[in-house]
């Protein structure tokens, strides 16, 4: 997969990598709002395993950029506790693969708080996820589905620098717990236009990345770039692809999903995490509910395989969705 740099038209804008856009978003929020602070492993002097908080400790001091012990349940618990006092913690997982170490704290403490006893928990849990970097089974995971199936959480997976910055700011300002998945493959591979002035991207709104008439690819994060590349190939043999970038996987933008289905009548759902119990299922159910009569063909799933993510490049490539898979499936569906 060759990541694509595609532009979001804006005035007074600069070219930023996906990683820089996130860094800048958090930095600006910390500058703007004294209640925002960061905690996590090696985020201080070191600036985080991927340098997302590089330089933060010099600017904001160790009080607001806290290096923690290796204890994910304590990190999430402490972030939650601080949020109850009106702070807005931004907690980093060094890799999102480790989020399972805080699973109970997230699912039973954080997510249920507002519904059960009416306390808002304005915190952000963020970190790198995703494959295509030969990270192996414990540094390539996409654990978002466990949290999509966890009422009370907002789950965000940006695909572009513009969205990454706008959504991290929105997440920090949101009064609810947000889990922010940063795709590590995109960190330094894509650049995009990011406006200089302050802006947010609304949580829960998808974005039409490419208009087309023949079929829709519903996807998000790194897969948006895979879909775009496939769409170019397909356009050569006259297949006109529409691409919807969900941007937020919980809550989902049902309207946008219904709209594109009603328009093209054929759908591929493309995601990186393993197929069974994955997001494509939820979207299939939504389409059945919102636009059943508009379907002219089966909803096609393209997803990671149902196993751990293997380490060796040929195996990882085989495991993960590729442009060629999308091209093949799109042709098949077109001629259904």
């Amino acid at each position: 997969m060759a990541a694509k740099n595609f532009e979001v038209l804006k005035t007074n804008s600069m070219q930023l990598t996906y990683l820089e856009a996130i860094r800048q978003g958090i930095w600006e929020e910390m500058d703007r709002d004294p209640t925002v602070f960061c905690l996590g492993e090696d985020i201080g002097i070191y600036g985080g395993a991927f340098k997302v908080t590089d330089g933060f400790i010099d600017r904001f001091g160790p009080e607001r950029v806290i290096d923690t012990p290796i204890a994910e349940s304590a990190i999430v618990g402490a972030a939650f506790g601080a949020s109850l006092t009106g702070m807005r913690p931004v907690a980093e997982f060094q890799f999102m693969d480790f989020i399972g170490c805080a699973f109970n704290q997230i699912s039973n403490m954080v997510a249920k708080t507002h519904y059960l006893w009416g306390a808002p928990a304005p915190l952000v849990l963020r970190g790198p996820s995703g494959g295509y970097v030969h990270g192996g089974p414990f540094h390539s995971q996409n654990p978002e589905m466990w949290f999509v199936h966890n009422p009370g959480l907002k789950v965000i997976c940006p695909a572009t620098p513009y969205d990454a910055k706008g959504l991290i700011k929105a997440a920090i300002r949101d009064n609810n717990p947000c889990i922010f998945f940063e795709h590590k493959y995109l960190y330094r591979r894509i650049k995009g236009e990011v406006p200089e002035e302050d802006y947010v991207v609304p949580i829960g709104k998808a974005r039409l990345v490419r208009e087309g008439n023949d079929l829709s690819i519903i996807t998000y994060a790194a897969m948006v770039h895979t879909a775009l590349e496939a769409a170019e190939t397909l356009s050569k043999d006259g297949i006109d692809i529409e691409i919807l970038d969900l941007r937020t996987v919980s809550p989902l933008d049902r309207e946008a999903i219904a709209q594109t289905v009603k328009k093209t009548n054929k759908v591929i759902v493309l995601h990186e995490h393993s197929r069974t119990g994955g997001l494509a299922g939820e979207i299939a159910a939504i389409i059945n509910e919102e636009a059943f009569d508009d379907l002219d063909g089966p909803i096609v799933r393209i997803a990671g395989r149902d196993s751990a993510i293997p380490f060796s490049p040929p195996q990882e490539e085989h495991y993960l969705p590729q442009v060629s898979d999308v091209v093949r499936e799109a042709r098949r569906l077109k001629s259904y």
Partner: protein
Amino acid sequence: PIRDSRYLDKKQCIEIYRYMLLNRKMEIGLENLYKQGKVVGGVYFGLGQEACSCASAYALDQDDWFAPMIRNQGALLVRGFRAADTMMQYMAKADSPTKGRDGTSHFGDIEKRNMVSPISMLGDLIPVLSGVALGARLQGRNIAALTWIGDGGQSTGVTYEGINFAAVQKLGLVLVVESNLWAYSTPSEMQYRVRDLAERSIGYGIPGAIVDGTDACQVYDATRDAVERAHRGEGPTMIEAKMMRMKGHAIHDAAAYVPKPMFEFWKKRDPIARFENYLVKEKKWLTAKENAELISEVERVIEAEREIAVNSPMPTPESAEGGVFCEDGCHEIKPKYGMPKVRKGTGGFKQTEAAAHFK
């Protein structure tokens, strides 16, 4: 005999004693409600642990925080909740603090009483209370954040993570270990191999204390010392309160697995009887008559609370809907102790291209 407190005066001792009475009478009330079929689910008791719950909570200042465990229903009364609140929780009433959505002591109040709602999973509150203290400190205040954990619950890994986090960050966590010899049917020697749980404080590099959990004065003094350490910004304290769970795990549990002599031994150490004897016989701070009046006053209060609770309606089915998210300004988020003073370092924003884990 009860040890004289280094801090408590007559008035305060009597106040704590009254809370202990309220605690016990409220639980007797809950038991009756259960027998009358008015309770949804089971009932949990703090019988034999009233001194531990009430005297420790009493050691907090107004601005401090706490989170109760299931046997700390007395602490809720000390912190200003009504008996009716807990009763309505058990009966799943519409006017309960959670409006029927949760039961027992599973509720909280971040506005006035600074209470974090517990969840059933044991230990998770400990890092949370550490985080509360962290949030306050960022706002310029060293507060105490008190919670309790059982001799069983402290076996959870999150307990360790939470105490260690507070120790490293020097946060005002005050952890009272309710060392009551049982975890459901499991005796404490099957939870840990060390003799006293307080010894675990050594491994955290924090002070640990052991108190007689049936002696309100000892519990208060140790907790107050810990609270003051917290206020001075000197970090967390672990207090092991030795006592006995005097009923089964919950009302369904006859505790047949507990050797009878064990109950008999501890019955003699009933925290309320001991404190009563101390106040009436030893200190003569209460005459028999005043004591009798106090007891019947408490009973009248509980009876009144019971009325309120019983008369609250059940929630409507539709009340199950909504509130999953904080939206449309249902809450305004603001720092509780004032806006943090930020000191801006020199560093400006610069792009980074430093080496990272995966390229």
